[in-house]
């Protein structure tokens, strides 16, 4: 499988108002293969959001390089979908219009994408809520809209920044299963940032474990759960063992 995203010795320090510099990312190196679901776990404040912003081109790294399918970030056709920590829907747009936002921003013909927008809304389980405004949707439903929006322009890579962190346990577990289904249906390359160990292990082919700030990669753990992932997986012995291993690496 080709490498979809490659991160090489990436580091980032912020200029702050009080101190002169603040090292957020020490040095991070890892690859994401095409079609893979990779999770990055790390303690709060270790630089996970910073990492995603750099990958998305919203922040300049201090050092290091990023390439998409072997092409360096600056020259690559940026084709990324992002799901942020909060759903970030526009309250003045209904669900359908929110999902269509990427198409407008990329100046494509909206009428050609209406069908795809409806399909995506169905895919995330919101059929019938196309006309609903964000204020009329629950937190979980808003996150579903945000996921559909991130897939709208058919990105090569989907970046997710703790998209489920704000949800309650019940909704969260349901969303994890749904997200897995979306992944299987779309075969997207997904990079998920989370501090939920169970979630990372359940969803991913590979878990990248980061240290606390300034973040370095402590370990890359490949997950092999043999067969379908779903609700029952949580009771699975290998699954529990993987979770233990991640927990252990984080604590080291």
């Amino acid at each position, binding site marked *: 499988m080709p490498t979809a995203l490659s991160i090489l010795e990436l580091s980032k320090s912020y200029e702050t108002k009080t101190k002169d510099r603040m090292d957020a990312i020490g040095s991070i190196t890892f690859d994401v293969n095409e079609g893979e679901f990779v999770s990055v776990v790390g303690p709060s404040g270790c630089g996970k959001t910073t990492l995603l*912003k750099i990958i*998305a*081109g*919203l922040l300049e790294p201090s050092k290091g390089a990023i390439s998409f399918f072997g092409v360096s970030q600056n020259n690559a056709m940026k084709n*990324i979908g*992002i799901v*942020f*920590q*909060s759903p*970030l829907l*526009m*309250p*003045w747009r209904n669900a359908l219009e929110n999902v269509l*936002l*990427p198409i*407008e*921003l*990329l100046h494509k013909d909206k009428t050609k994408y209406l069908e795809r927008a409806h399909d995506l809304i169905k895919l995330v389980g919101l059929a019938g809520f196309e006309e609903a*405004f964000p*204020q009329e949707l629950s937190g979980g439903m808003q996150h579903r809209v945000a996921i559909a929006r991130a897939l709208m*322009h058919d990105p090569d890579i989907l970046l997710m920044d703790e998209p489920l962190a704000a949800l309650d346990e019940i909704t969260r577990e349901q969303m994890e299963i749904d997200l897995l289904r979306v992944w299987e249906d779309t075969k997207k390359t997904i990079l998920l940032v989370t501090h939920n160990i169970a979630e990372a292990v359940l969803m991913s082919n590979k878990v990248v474990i980061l240290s606390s700030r300034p973040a370095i990669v402590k370990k890359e753990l490949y997950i092999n759960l043999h067969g379908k992932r779903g609700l029952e997986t949580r009771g699975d012995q290998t699954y529990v063992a993987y979770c233990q291993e991640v927990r252990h690496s984080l604590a080291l």
Partner: protein
Amino acid sequence: MNGSIFPTIRRYGPSVVVFVIFVIVWQILVEAFKIPVYLVPPPSTILNKILDPSMNWPTQAMTTTYESLMGFGIAIVVGIGTAILIVWSKGFSTIVYPFVITMQIVPKIAFVPLLFIWFGFNYTPRIFTVFLVCYFPIVVSTVAGFSSTEPSMIDLIRSFTSSKLDLLTKALLPSALPSIFAGLKVSVTLAVIGALVAEFVSSTQGLGFVILASQSELNAPVAFAAAALLIVIGFLLYLSIELLERLIVPWKNVVVLGK
């Protein structure tokens, strides 16, 4: 999505009742204490004045309304335009902002007589006066509204495009609308005052002119009638802005602590 006029009526219903009571008490007190008409006329006399066709009220009121609306409209366009310039680039902002602030702190009213000398004794200086008093609140509220855009919303848009225009129209302007409307509400009430002040300085018609003329004749009922019409105009303008806000910004949070 409450765009109809009925909530507005229901909201102001109690205030209208209070107002009617106030007018009745006023009438009774003026009669009971035999207060001379040239000091405080009773509401009945004022009402008679308002209904007097020889006063030409519609023309006078239209003049003042026209000046207020024109000045206000120009202030909206120029004010929001200035705010866009201010957020557009750091360079613009450092150049433009000092001028905007200076324009606000110079005693504008003191310059009104000059405006007539510069622009002639016509509508222009009066509309310009209205513009001057309306401009600043609109600039400030629009810039504040732009700054209230969620930073991650800006990130979201920037992850697709680097176009500033898209950023402005898709995120900044819609986010700023509630704040812009707050500024418009302040401005629209100032607009009427601006028109009045300009008419005091020089005019041959308009409610400000009527008030000034009534003063030289010690004609309090006329002055009160003109003031009453000014209040009505101000109120109507304010209500139109509120109605417009309900139509354009239906997602606005309304915070009320208690029932």
